[in-house]
């Protein structure tokens, strides 16, 4: 029924908004910035004023002008257009890696933590092996060998090499939860282990899973940019690393063409910062201790530090502070 579904939709939207408002300020800023990137990833190709691959006969990069706000590359490609179009590949790669790697780490980590014994030994060993692998050289070798087919294979390889840290964290958290009374009580009811893991444990780890996801996205984006910079990328498509690669191979620094590497560099840095801010915010949500450290409270015109003596407010009327 449209009558009932519309209010429910609005109610859901309102709940999201209320939840957003309660977030720590760091997370709010981070989410706002990330939203811009996601929006650009969706509509960037239509916003781009020029064809990023366009070449002119000019032989020098052109500085920022009204026509080319972020300047051009040595071959006359518009840097702004390259960034706007490249956002999609970078964001998709980051999110895809986040989803795959987090799923892997949650499954392996929670199972190892809950099951214990030999299952734990085996899964922990697996995670530890992946942890000590030299990731970047391996990536260079594997991706250099694979045919360049786009973001998905890269995401899979990045996930395969990047899930282990999250799994260790999930395992530790699960081990602290598994002996909580409500988990024992679920066993007492007679629930199967997989049900306890999925329905009792995981919902209580949402904060940690979210933080792990954000951290993995951060790792994936930085790594993919680094790889592209080294030339291990799919050149038929644009992403942030490609721009930096061309800037480097086009001797942008020697030419003094700062716009060629500063604009894409700052774009990557701001994206990374938004993810770090979200992670800090999530940390504060899940760890009340971090919150209390900033718990100076304003009472009237004064703010109170946690170590101050209890305020005395005479002639107090409820709601006046």
């Amino acid at each position, binding site marked *: 029924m449209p009558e009932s579904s519309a209010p429910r939709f609005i109610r859901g939207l309102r709940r999201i908004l209320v939840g957003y408002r309660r977030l720590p300020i760091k997370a709010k800023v981070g989410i706002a910035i990330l939203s811009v990137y996601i929006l650009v990833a969706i509509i960037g190709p239509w916003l781009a004023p020029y064809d990023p691959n366009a070449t002119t006969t000019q032989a020098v990069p052109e500085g920022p002008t009204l026509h080319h706000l972020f300047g051009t590359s040595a071959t006359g490609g518009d840097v702004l257009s390259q960034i706007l179009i490249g956002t999609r590949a970078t964001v998709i790669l980051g999110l895809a890696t986040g989803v795959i790697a987090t799923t892997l780490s949650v499954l392996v980590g929670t199972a190892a933590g809950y099951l214990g014994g030999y299952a734990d030994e085996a899964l922990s060993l697996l995670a530890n092996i992946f942890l000590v692998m030299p990731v970047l050289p391996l990536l260079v070798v594997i991706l250099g060998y694979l045919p360049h087919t786009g973001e998905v294979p890269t995401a899979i390889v990045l996930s395969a090499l990047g899930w282990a840290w999250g799994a260790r964290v999930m395992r530790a958290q699960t081990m602290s939860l598994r002996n909580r009374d409500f988990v024992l*009580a*679920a066993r*007492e009811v*007679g*629930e199967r282990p997989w049900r306890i893991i999925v329905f009792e444990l995981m919902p209580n780890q949402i904060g940690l899973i979210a933080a792990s996801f954000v951290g993995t996205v951060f790792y994936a984006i930085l790594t993919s940019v680094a790889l592209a910079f080294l030339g291990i990328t799919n050149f038929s498509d644009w992403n942030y690393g490609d721009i930096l690669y061309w800037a480097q191979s086009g001797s942008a620094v020697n030419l003094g063409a700062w716009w060629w590497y500063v604009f894409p560099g700052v774009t990557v840095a701001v994206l990374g910062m938004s993810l770090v801010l979200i992670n800090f915010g999530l940390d504060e949500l899940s760890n009340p201790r971090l919150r209390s450290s900033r718990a100076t409270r304003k009472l009237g015109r004064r703010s109170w530090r946690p170590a101050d*003596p209890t305020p005395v407010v005479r002639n107090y009327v*409820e709601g006046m502070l």
Partner: protein
Amino acid sequence: MVPASEPPVALATNGARPPGPVLDIKGLSINYLSESGDVRAVRDVDMELHPGKIVGLAGESGCGKSTLAYGAVRLLRPPAIVTGGSVTYHGRRLAAKHPGGFDVLASDDAGLKAIRWREVAIVFQSAMNALNPVLRIEDQIVDGIRAHLPISREQAYDRSRELIEMVGIKQDRLKAYPHELSGGMRQRVMIAMALSVDPEVVIMDEPTTGLDVIVQKEILKEVLELKEQLGFSVLFITHDLSLLLEIADQVVVMYAGQVVEQAPTADVRSGGVHPYTRGLLGSFPRLRGPRVQLTGIPGAPPDLRGALKGCPFHPRCAFAQDACLQIDMSLAQVPGMGAGHMTACPFVAPGRTLPEAARVIDRATGVEDRSVADAGDLVLAGVDLRKDYGGRRGHVVSAVKGVSLELHRGRVVALVGASGSGKSTIAKLLSGQEKRTSGTIMLDGKQIEPSARRNFRAYKSEVQMVFQDPFASLNPLKKVSYHLQRALAVHSSRTGREPSVAEIDRLLEQVKLNPVEKFRDAYPHELSGGQRQRVSIARALAAEPRVLLADEPVSMLDVSIRLEILDLIAELRTNSQLAILYITHDIASARYFADEILVMHQGEIVERGPAEELVKNPTQAYTQLLIASSPDPDTFASEVPEQAAILAREGLEKEVASE
């Protein structure tokens, strides 16, 4: 700096005290600011603490007793604010500087720093959290002393040795880290630290909660002796009124942020006059005298947001009348009682009896029968159960050393012991939560392996456990209905009951959570501790088990509602003929409703027998000690028998030696 010739610590009186209280609280009000309305936790409270006296502050959790004590020395953080009243400290050392007394509420941070610890010290409830885990206790004591007294490090170490002996710990334990000490010893260290700079007032916030009765008794005796010796005064906060009757000079009973009765301890021991005080006293099962049906205090405390009209206790009061809504809750002298016996209830008269006179439920009266002779069928038995922890590398700790017990239909067996005695481990072994090292478990005379995967569900449909902590045993993210629905679904093939709303409602009604509509869709955090424990019991009943293992089911609850839960379990015994194992550290509650008592000590059953019999004539020294140490409102400072006292001292020595 002090010249070396002076004594290390200025323990001597320097200044005469004006007559009157050492701590004088008048009209103190404290609010917790909140977006959904301020919680007015302390409302216009007057209280005096006289030098050398112990004032006991009692009441249910949330009654404002801790807020009052911490607020009076301004240790609460915002959102707590003091909204009115005065707190005056009259110390000997400050008499010259502050002839009219030190005004705590007008003082600034620096002024308060001079008062805290030096004049007013605190012993916190959780000694593990109050001590720094990475520092030796010696250094912690010395740091505390040197923060308040200008003395040298060597002098401070001398003082720390003096202090630690004073609280009954050997000097060589000073080098220990907090985790190397037992709970009782940590609390003694806290007391030593509190007394380190000779304060005049010591606030003790539930200092013995979580300790075993035997250790509790030892520490309370210690406090009384030290008080005689050093002359400080104590503000003793506890939910356990019976404990106050043993040590306090005066008792202050709080309810809903207000004082409802304050009286010399002797007057309270004889029953008190306020219906709430009587209710609290009536909530403690007794160890002596006839076994009576206790009533407890039905209902829950009011919401403390906003104003309260009249007496806040009237919805739970057996004597409530319309006029209760008009009274102003000011304290008045009780006619016919000694001076200083004040109450807020204007309708009391000495000698008024409760409408339902205490019902004696001993065998002789025929009200309720319980004896070993007419035991029902044997359902579950553990034979020679043993559980070792550790192994592989490191040394083995035996938590349970060959324990046998039998659970019969329609009977309650109580397993009584101190923490660490292995009693909870037995519940876990019997429930299949943990694998035993050796021994047999028999269900209906047949040997069974509870923890084996193929048996687990079938076994769970016969044997269910209720956990100790009602705040932890429900998944905080799931509704009440989810918990019950899952339990019904898992066992529906055996019970033949569908996991339907009707069945959920039936379970809620069985544990008296009415109206069911209200509780069905509630989340655990919206329920009180007692209500949560009922949900836990309902969940256990969904499997329609024949055995219920109740692991300290009421120890985390307020005394006033413990009885309701115990009565509910007793009802399951009678009506559903469940075989029940009741695990507790409180032998009085075991006497109250168990048929048989097993006393456990260091992994072994030291004595077993019919409940009444065992409590009346304990034969083993440990049982005697346990009974003598249990706080009992009826007997003041009951003497510990000689043999038991020796055992206690040996236990303490062993504690020191083993750690």
